[in-house]
């Protein structure tokens, strides 16, 4: 017997598509039995009505179809979208906070945050670079409002060869001010550039001023740019052994900064810092021409000891460093007395 033929035949017999009379004789009785079993009688009407009523009641008591999953999908979508929005907001705030804490927040963002009343603590030095042109250039160069510190955290340091007097102000650790102080402390000479460069590379200023209060009574001595420019060729040669260079009388003119001092360790906003820097620069410019031995709280500075603003705490360590580098820093006390 052909198996495929049997399968098709059996399928037709079981489905009731082949009448018993048309079935093979050996399967006729079996097909009749299947047809009798297939002819199921209807359910008793009473039992049927009771069953249907019970089913309708059970359906009504249960959840409604096709609305619940639809609604639940909308609900899930709403919850997910809300969660996503909250997560994005938290992420943005966290990222901004982290950037502000690490000091990597860009300046425009910092300004915006400060405008809305959020204090951004910029730990890295914010350098205000003021370029003072040589006397040949009569017009002062336009001053950028706020400079950006380089990767080393050191701003533009006064370098005689560039005839640039830069004031580095640090918002928090005052490292730039240390460098600036060294630049002004060091006698103009062959060692000036190297000493300032070494100070700029070091992080001592950061460490020494991390917990320093802003009550430094600074005595600012400004080295005129004209004098530094004259020492440039010597420093370019790198000869630091010639201590003969002394401060000119004008360069030894000391002026006392105002009540708060220009080297406040308080974190200041850039705008305030800039205006204060301008103020200091203008004061420097004036003091270079007005030698005032009798100026109030002035410090008589010998040619071999020029000191600039230092904090009371960071002075000793810096003096030691300068002495270690062969620089005579003198014996001026914290109050400016020798």
């Amino acid at each position, binding site marked *: 017997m052909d198996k495929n033929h*049997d*399968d098709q035949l*059996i*399928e037709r*017999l*079981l*489905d*009731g598509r082949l009448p018993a009379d048309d079935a093979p004789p*050996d*399967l006729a*009785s*079996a097909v009749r*039995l*299947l047809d*009798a*079993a*297939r*002819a*199921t*009688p*209807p*359910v*008793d009407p009473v*039992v*049927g009505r009771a*069953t*249907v*009523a*019970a*089913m*309708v009641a*059970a*359906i*009504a008591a*249960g*959840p*409604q*179809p*096709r609305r*619940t999953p639809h609604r639940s999908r909308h609900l899930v979508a709403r919850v997910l979208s809300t969660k996503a929005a909250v997560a994005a907001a938290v992420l943005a705030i966290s990222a901004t906070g982290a950037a502000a804490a690490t000091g990597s927040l860009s300046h425009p963002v910092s300004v915006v945050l400060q405008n809305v009343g959020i204090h951004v603590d910029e730990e890295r030095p914010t350098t205000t670079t003021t370029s003072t042109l040589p006397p040949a250039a009569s017009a002062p160069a336009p001053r950028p409002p706020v400079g950006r510190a380089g990767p080393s955290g050191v701003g533009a340091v006064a370098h005689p060869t560039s005839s640039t007097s830069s004031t580095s102000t640090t918002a928090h650790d005052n490292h730039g001010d240390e460098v600036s102080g060294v630049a002004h402390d060091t006698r103009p000479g062959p060692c000036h550039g190297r000493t300032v460069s070494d100070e700029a590379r070091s992080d001592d200023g950061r460490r020494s001023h991390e917990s320093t209060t802003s009550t430094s009574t600074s005595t600012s001595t400004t080295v005129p740019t004209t004098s530094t420019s004259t020492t440039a060729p010597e420093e370019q040669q790198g000869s630091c052994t010639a201590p003969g260079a002394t401060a000119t009388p004008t360069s030894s003119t000391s002026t006392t900064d105002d009540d708060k001092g220009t080297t406040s360790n308080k974190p200041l906003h850039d705008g305030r810092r800039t205006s204060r820097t301008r103020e200091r620069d203008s004061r420097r410019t004036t003091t270079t021409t007005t030698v005032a031995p009798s100026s109030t709280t002035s410090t008589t500075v010998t040619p071999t000891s020029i000191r600039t603003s230092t904090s009371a705490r960071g002075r000793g360590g810096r003096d030691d460093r300068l002495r270690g580098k062969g620089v005579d820093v003198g014996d001026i006390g914290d109050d400016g007395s020798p």
Partner: protein
Amino acid sequence: MSVGEQFDEVLAAAQLGEDWAVAVLFRDLGPPVQAYLRARAGADAEDVASQTWLEVARGLHRFEGDESGFRGWVFTIAKRRLANERRRRTRRPTELLGDDDLASWDDPGTRIESDDAVRRITSLLPEDLAEIVLLRVVAGLPVEEVAQVTGRRAGTVRVMQHRALKRLAAVLEAEV
């Protein structure tokens, strides 16, 4: 007998609790379910049928599929309820149905004839083969649905139904 092309509308209405739609579904599937359960559950067939339909009603909102799938789903529930009833019966044994009990379930002559045919099938075949034949003939399920209800592969179902039919034919031929 089947609902046919109107099945989707009937099912949607039944899922919303429309009594007319539930009646249509019950009128279509009630008789084969009861026939199947009478052959398998004996005296407890009516109770098992009631439990089956209530479970169908409770789970009707979750069902998605065509008419063939719906038939297979209903018989799957019936088979599960039958298995539960058999476990309960083994814990609390009762007398099995005799011929008189089967005939007295309801009276109409056609029912007796149908039930007698179903009973002969179950008595002549092993249980697994009898179930395959009942699902194919009484429940009217295609091979694929029978495979799903019984947990077997479709090829296995085809082989089993082939064997069942040959065995019935051989036995009935021998009686003659």
